């Protein structure tokens, strides 16, 4: 008798489980946006999604979001993960999907050149900045532990490393000087976590003395009560995050992307620490060093196009992994020589 009940229970549970299977696929796919984003985007998007769902275009639209290291997310979509929109850290991660036939090759032909958000690289330090880290040269001083993500998986990492390399060039140094600096830089790296967010977690967990990260991530963490300071160095790089629709994206995804790029969307991004793509008027940003003037210009702001020849050139030149005939990138070589 008891066993009969047990079997019945198991069978019922099995049926329930199977209905659970089918339940998720019965959602109306035209009103669903499968959003694949890079690691630090989640909290910023939460606000935008809420506001979008209150607009006419956004009513009834369901969002399925996935966040992780930019490179890993890009590979996941290439490997078959569902996506209507990809919003990643840097252009090469979208180019990979163009090559895989999942994103139209004209994805950049629009008003924002394919970008949805932007920020700059900043140095995050412990509260009170006990080691007085204010410039790129401070990073290579002995005893300073640098936390920066792994360029193999993270987009943030590549931006960080280019900003570091570029700081030497911006100061008038030669490529050889930059190589020398990066050698010293990698010797001071204390950890190479997988993603920008993992790097934040590692730093707040006690690893290292300085964290290289997105300005928006630093501001967001402070908004959420994390106790640290950040420094805008003399030279930095403009981080431009691309967003693109996949070839089989739903119509709602297009409306969503339009909303992201609209003034309202950019203002919401600004409130979580992103530098808006267009002028959105005065924004008070809690968590910034000065909430009423949240986005001061660094003395020298490098861009990937003007100073590094664009990602098409820079990705291979600096980060090529040496496989399949591709050259080994400058920074890849220095990184492996430093044993990292």
């Amino acid at each position, binding site marked *: 008798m008891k066993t009969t009940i047990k079997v019945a229970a198991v069978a019922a549970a*099995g049926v329930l489980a199977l209905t659970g*299977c089918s339940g998720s696929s019965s959602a109306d796919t035209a009103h669903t946006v499968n959003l694949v984003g890079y690691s630090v985007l989640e909290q910023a998007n939460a606000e935008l999604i809420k506001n979008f769902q209150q607009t006419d275009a956004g009513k009834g639209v369901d969002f399925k979001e996935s966040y992780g290291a930019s490179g890993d997310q890009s590979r996941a979509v290439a*490997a078959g*993960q569902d996506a209507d929109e990809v919003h990643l850290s840097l252009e090469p991660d979208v180019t990979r999907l163009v090559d895989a036939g999942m994103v139209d090759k004209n994805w950049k032909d629009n008003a924002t050149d394919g970008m949805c958000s932007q920020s700059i690289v900043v140095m995050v330090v412990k509260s009170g900045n006990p080691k007085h880290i204010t410039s790129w040269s401070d990073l290579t001083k002995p005893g300073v532990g640098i936390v920066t993500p792994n360029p193999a998986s993270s987009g943030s990492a590549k931006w960080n490393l280019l900003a570091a390399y570029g700081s030497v060039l911006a100061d008038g140094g030669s490529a050889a000087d930059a190589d020398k600096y990066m050698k010293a830089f990698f010797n001071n790296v204390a950890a190479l976590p997988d993603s920008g967010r993992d790097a934040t977690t590692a730093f707040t967990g006690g690893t290292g003395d300085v964290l290289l990260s997105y300005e928006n991530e630093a501001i*967001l963490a402070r908004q959420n009560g994390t106790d640290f300071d950040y420094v805008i160095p003399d030279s930095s790089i403009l981080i431009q995050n691309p967003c693109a629709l996949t070839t089989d994206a739903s119509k709602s995804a297009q409306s969503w992307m339009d909303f992201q790029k609209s003034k309202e969307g950019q203002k919401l991004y600004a409130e979580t620490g992103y530098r808006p793509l267009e002028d959105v008027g005065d924004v008070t940003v809690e968590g910034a060093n000065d909430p009423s003037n949240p986005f001061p210009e660094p003395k020298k702001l490098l861009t990937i196009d003007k100073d590094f020849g664009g990602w098409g050139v820079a990705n291979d030149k600096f980060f090529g992994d040496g496989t399949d005939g591709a050259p080994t990138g400058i920074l890849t070589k220095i990184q492996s020589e430093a044993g990292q």
Partner: protein
Amino acid sequence: MSSPSTTVATSSPVVKWVLRLVVVAYLFLLLVWPTWFLVKNTFANGMTGIQEALADPDVVHALQLTAQIAVASVAINTVFGVGISLLLVRQRFIGRRVLSVLIDLPLSVSPVVVGLALVLVYNGQFGWFGPWLEAHGLQVVFAMPGMILATCFVILPLVVREVVPVLEELGEDQEQAARSLGANAWQTFWRITLPGIRWAVVYGVVLSLARALGEFGAVKVVAGNVGGETQVATVLVQQKYQGFEQDTAYSVSFMLVLAAVLCLVVVALLRPKEGKK
């Protein structure tokens, strides 16, 4: 069964108390005190932590998903576990010993390796079977079937290891008696064998359930971490902890541990009932 011997080591009070001290201290520092913190952190603000967690639709979905996967994989595993146990104990066939050793394999394999193994076979782009399966409408990786498979893999030995020793001890006498009286295989199984192993099956089911609820690494690799869709509760805990929502992470953790501990308590209460030897 064995009465505490009064003539051997435990008779010395010094040894006994040193033993107690060392064991209790070890367990307290390693196990009890950290676990207490989980409870403390969850209820730091009374029930609001849990209430807020349950108000988050991603949390609710993750818990439902975890429950569905756990139930499905335990159900499948119980059926195959009992079946394989019967075959291992009651039948002779070539490779029986090898199979017996292989069944234990999932206990020694890292969950990330499990995920990798399943991805290599079932991925829709480059897996061995994946493209064919997806062409016929069955997506395994990044979807529910993959998560169930991953969980089944890790819980595979748990039922078998409980049932096999009991089956061996039971012996075949009653089963053979039943067969000689005209019962067919199914009746023999249902009325003779199953009641004999039922506590072993229950224990195995509960262990597998606890293990399935807590699976993390394998599902993380196979599923793709889509919030509200393929994100199970354990993966959600990591994401919330790193996403500045530690309170939610603690609340969900507490719920998972509570569910698993309840399973263990149920078993602990049931065990005396099976009768002393």
